[in-house]
């Protein structure tokens, strides 16, 4: 039987080092939320109800250079009358330390179910928006945002 020497060549050592450094850079410094956490939050809010696509216009940049300040605009199509209006809007981020981002409560006096703010995104991830109508119908929209510099921790 032939024994091979188990020592790495210089090239292999360098490659392994580079891979380790790359993995370390990728590993999150914080415990971050996952898609399952977002699903869990939705289940807490709405149980097993189903969500339809559409009616929500989720306006967020596809590429955010600075994760500390990402402009977010939500627009939900609705006549906003007493009988038919948007009651609540929730926004989640599946790669932030906490899955929740915000909740809006609208009334017919809002006139328009539309609002803008600025949010923090820790890494490249999905932003999920859910709208609850006055008749109980649920709508959802999702956008993937590529984040160049993360906006959490420090």
């Amino acid at each position: 039987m032939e024994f091979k020497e188990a020592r790495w060549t210089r090239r292999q050592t360098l490659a392994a080092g580079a891979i380790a450094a790359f993995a370390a850079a990728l590993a999150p410094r914080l415990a971050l939320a996952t898609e399952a956490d977002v699903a869990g939050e939705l289940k807490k809010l709405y149980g097993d109800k189903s969500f339809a696509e559409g009616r929500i216009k989720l306006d967020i940049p596809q590429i955010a250079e600075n994760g500390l300040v990402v402009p977010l605009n939500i627009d939900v199509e609705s006549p906003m009358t007493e009988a038919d209006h948007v009651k609540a809007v929730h926004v989640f981020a599946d790669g932030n330390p906490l899955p929740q981002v915000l909740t809006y409560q609208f009334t017919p006096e809002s006139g328009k179910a539309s609002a803008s703010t600025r949010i923090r995104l820790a890494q490249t991830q999905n932003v999920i928006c859910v709208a609850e109508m006055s008749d109980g119908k649920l709508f959802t929209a999702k956008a993937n945002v590529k984040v160049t510099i993360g906006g959490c921790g420090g």
Partner: protein
Amino acid sequence: MTTKAQPRVRVPAQAKAGEIIEIKSLISHEMESGQRKDAEGKQIPRKILNTFQASFDGKPFFTASWFPSISANPYQSFFFKATRSGEFKFTWRDDDGSIAEHVAKLTVA
């Protein structure tokens, strides 16, 4: 380090009956997320504005619950359907229980 929460609100003073007006608000606040560590590696406790509410003549018409994912110096824009003259009140509630307020009058012609 704490800055005093200074609200700024841009709201039209006049509107036509039935007009949907846009209201823009900005408040200075660091929105400490509770995720950061200080120089000694100790966790900095969370201190954010957790609720923003807009009311007209005492009746809330728009409420925002904010989580630590809201950027520092939170900006919020939203809409209101003007039907009559009255007074807006905008409130921001801090984790420490303090409240910042801003009042504005609206005249509907």
